[in-house]
Structure formats: C-alpha cells, structure tokens
C-alpha cells in the first residue's frame, strides 16, 4: 500500500505550440525584448542621427523607408514593439493584482496578441 501523500510526477508541457496564451505572451515578451535591444535600439539611434543631421540624410531615408520590403521589415519591428508594449502593460496590471484570476488573465493574454496585431495592422494601413 502506497502512502496517500506520495508525490506524483508533474509534467509541464513546454512545447511552444501547446503553451497556454499567458505562456506564449511571456516567451514572446522575452524574444521581442531581445530583438528590440539588438538591432532595434542602435538602428533607431542611427536613423535619428541620419534624418536629423541633414536634409539630404532625411530625404535619403524617407526614400529607403518608402520601399515595400523596408516597410515590411519596419512593420515586423513595430509588431515586436507593440507586443512588448501591451504585454508589459498586462504585467504592470498583474503586479497591481488587477486581473490575476485564471479566466481574466487568460482573456488578457489573448487580448495582448489581438492588440499587438491590431496596432501593427493599423500602421500597415497608414503607410500603404
């Protein structure tokens, strides 16, 4: 007879495809943060320097940013920023014990993905 208090094995399925929404928000928050550190921060600083430095630089980069392939890359980084932004706001609210119930935290995790995608689509619509 085994004791009733026996520790049962725990199994956490860490496969990305099977993570609950909150887990996906978390890992994409980390991945987006890494890409925002490199290459987004130096790229942003370089772009500001080049476009504020001279009118020739401004016109050059305005032309580059009008190219469709560059727009797609830009939208990729906008999505990274938007996801990091909304996921971060969710964490700030969770820190304040706002929406920490199982259902509300699941709903807010899904909302983070929806808002990140909507912000990106809104900008895509704006620049095309």
């Amino acid at each position: 007879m085994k004791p009733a208090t026996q520790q049962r094995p725990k199994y956490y399925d860490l496969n990305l495809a099977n993570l609950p929404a909150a887990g996906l928000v978390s890992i994409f928050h980390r991945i987006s943060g890494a890409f925002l550190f490199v290459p987004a921060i130096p790229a942003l600083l370089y772009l500001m320097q080049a476009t504020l430095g001279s009118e020739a630089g401004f016109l050059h980069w305005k032309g580059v940013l009008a190219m469709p392939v560059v727009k797609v890359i830009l939208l990729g980084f906008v999505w990274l920023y938007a996801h990091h932004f909304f996921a971060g706001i969710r964490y700030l609210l969770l820190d304040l014990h706002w929406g920490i119930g199982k259902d509300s935290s699941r709903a807010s995790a899904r909302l983070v993905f929806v808002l990140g995608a909507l912000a990106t689509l809104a900008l895509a619509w704006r620049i095309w």
Partner: protein
Amino acid sequence: MAAFKLPVGAHYGLTAWLMQRLTAVVMVAYTLLMAGIALWCPPGNYSDWKGLFSGSFLRLATMLFFVALLYHAWVGVRDIIMDYIKPTGLRLTLQALVGTALVFYLVWSVSILWGR
C-alpha cells in the same frame, strides 16, 4: 535545511525589478505622446521633423525616454543573460559588453539631441 530564506545579498535585485516597471511607465507615456503626434500632425518634411525635436519639451521627453529605455534594456537583457548563460566568465563578459553598449548609446542619444 533551513525553511526560511537567509536574509543576505546586495538587495539590488529589488531596485532593478522596481526600475524596470518605473521605466516601463515612462516609455508608455512617451509612446502614447509620439503616437498622438504621428496621428494628428505627422512631420512630412525635413524642417517639420527637425523642428519637432528642437523644442525643449519634446527634446527633454525624448532624452527621458532614452534613459528609461536603456535602463529597462539593461535589466531585461541582464535577466536573459543570467537565465541562459551558465559559465561565469562568459556571462560576466557579455554583461560587461551589454553595459558598455548601453552607456555608448546613452552618450550617442545626447549627441543626437543636443550635438548640433
């Protein structure tokens, strides 16, 4: 085994945790401000764009954003490095490189906003 956490350590982890959140709030405010500018009065030419950052309010707000961004990046990237890079020498080397890059970016952002 002691069932309690030993009250030792430098305690700067709490500072980092708190600053990560404070800097996030600063960046949320700046992001909303810039989104508003992009929506209602987007700068279309060079003089608009340059004029935007020549006013002292937006210049200071942008500087505050960069300070918050670089501090926030330091906490976040350090967390990532501590989680995945186990060999101490490599971990400390990477942390030193990241810190050096962030200080360089800080000086760079000052020179972009004021150095002309």
